[in-house]
């Protein structure tokens, strides 16, 4: 049997790297994609040495949207699974003051990832199988003053994934939405996160692995986040708008 292949985009992220380890351990060949492939060299040899699997790297800037379709079509073999971990939080105050910063955040979290998965959706549909994994965020479940630029872009991505799943449900293409709560990664380094609510990247990776095996639709990683977001979303707007959260 030939080995299955997983493509992981945004591969320099801690969550992406942990996911690569998880799938390599399960016997997949790994394709890592990032803006700068030089940043992937240590991860590449590490995974290859540990799991004796084939690891290759690809260059992709998700903001270079014209490149996306060619990138997807150029991969050989076409991967069985695509994970998009690309994301960028930016600084909320800067995002408020500088429209160009807000635009980068919106495009990096919504436009780029959605177009990427669109391209693979079409190829997977044509082939008749495949799994698309989008890492969005609970920040997209309700806009909050402290990070609504990032949150709104993630909201867009979450809605996009939901629509894509609806479209492909009958086409044997599985779409998984990952809504991690806090995760201890480079993105959140230095922030004072509550320990009980913060997952390790390996935990997210394991949850993704299990969810792809079981064809789950939406996962929160730590189940407590489902409850937290239920409560946050249930607060009536007249009250919510006055809260500092």
């Amino acid at each position: 049997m030939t080995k299955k292949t997983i493509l992981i985009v945004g591969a320099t992220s801690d969550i992406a790297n942990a996911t690569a380890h998880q799938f390599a351990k399960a016997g997949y060949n790994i394709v890592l994609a990032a803006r700068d492939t030089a940043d992937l060299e240590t991860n590449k040899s590490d995974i290859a040495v540990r799991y004796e699997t084939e690891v290759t790297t690809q260059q992709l800037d998700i903001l270079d949207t014209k490149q996306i379709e060619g990138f997807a079509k150029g991969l050989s073999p076409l991967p069985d699974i695509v994970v998009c971990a690309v994301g960028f939080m930016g600084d909320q105050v800067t995002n408020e003051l500088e429209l160009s910063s807000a635009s980068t955040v919106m495009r990096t979290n919504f436009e780029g990832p959605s177009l990427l998965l669109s391209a693979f959706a079409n190829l997977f549909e044509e082939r008749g199988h495949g799994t698309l994994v989008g890492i969005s965020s609970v920040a997209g479940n309700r806009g909050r003053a402290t990070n609504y630029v990032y949150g709104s872009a993630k909201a867009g991505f979450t809605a996009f994934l939901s629509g894509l799943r609806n479209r492909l449900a009958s086409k044997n293409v599985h779409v998984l939405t990952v809504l991690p709560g806090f995760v201890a990664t480079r993105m959140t380094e230095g922030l004072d996160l509550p320990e009980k609510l913060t997952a390790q990247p390996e935990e997210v990776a394991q949850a993704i692995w299990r969810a792809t095996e079981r064809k789950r639709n939406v996962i929160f990683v730590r189940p407590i986040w489902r409850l937290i977001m239920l409560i946050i979303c249930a607060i009536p707007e007249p009250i919510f708008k006055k809260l500092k959260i």
Partner: protein
Amino acid sequence: MKLSGWGGFPSHETRLVAPRSITQLVDAVHDGNAIARGNGRAYGDSAIGSNTTINMRHFNHMIAFNAQTGVLETEAGVLLSDIIDAFLPRGWFPYVTPGTKYVSVGGIIAADVHGKNHHKDGSLRNFVDWLEVMGPSGEIVRCSPTQNEELFGWTVGGMGLTGIIVRAAIRLRPVESGWIKQRTIVAENIDAAIDIFEDNSDASYSVAWIDCLSTADKAGRSVIMLGEHASMNDLDDKTRRRPHALATKGKLSVPFHFPSWVLNQFSVRAFNSVYFRNLKWQIGEQLLSWDKYFYPLDAINGWNKIYGRKGFMQFQCTLPLASSREALHEILGKISSTGSGSFLSVLKRFGAQEGGISFPMEGYTLALDFPVSKKTIELMSQLDEITLKYGGRFYLAKDSRMSAATLDSSDNRSKHFATWRAENGLNTTFQSVQSQRLGL
């Protein structure tokens, strides 16, 4: 932030950083008075920087493996547990391993660790092909037994005081299975234990657990565990189905710091008798998984918390062969007379040893745990004195309290090390709370 070692004592204020790239690592080194930290398993203050502590956990990539020679090139933050996970299924195991697998490659090289096979194979030093060490300028220098030998000599065993080990090449041992044939022998007292070690010098692995509270002609009664890697022929039907043996499952965790009264001399006594009663049961030969044989303590997460918030200390000395018997009698006599029993007391025969400042010497090593209290600190100073009297020395990876004067009189190599550090401008760049205390 406040940081301590595995014993939870002492704790010190330090700036903890975790660089992700060589550039960030250089910046951290340029802060000065910095020290590398691996997985924090040294008991005392070896891995606490007097100014900055550099956590090496992001340097956790393996680089290459040569399946002909068994040489693994790896970054220094990789844990031994990861190496076993990756390579035992392919028939390789670390040549030298301490009693826990949750240690980093950098940490075990810096401590030049010994295993249960020291009497045969020596310390880890013998299985390190080369190192890449970042010095004060941020430049990375490769050293080996034949290249920059001096730097290599002091770095292995040098407790992080020669620079940051960034990468290393270590040799693994080919094994047929992950099972160990263990032979257990009971020794009624310390003399019998030493005789058993001497009679079994051809065993691949040997170690003894001692009951420190037994007295008179039972003083030092112990259980000696000898081990051999099992070949495929040694396995039975059950073990042959999983020749590489799985890691121990269903780990227990210690959820919080126990109140300090939990571990008093009565509980230690009870533990030791229960332990001995159970062990006497298993006398003879049995097959154990690598995890149970080498890492019994790893089965309990956070076992260090049973000693309570005040923490605990280790006393580990090594004694010259000629005076070992006499010295051990005196040490065990001192311990049982104060009634401060040690939970885990381990005795081991060392073989010959080389190296700049490495701990082992041909003879016997004794390791003891004590909860922190005025009384035990006093006892440990007395044990220092006995060790000095017989020409022994102390393990820096376990030390949390000895004085600079004690180190000086135990080991004339320490002065040379301090001088070499000063001459090479290392003493202001790389400094731990321990090196400051010991004047290294």
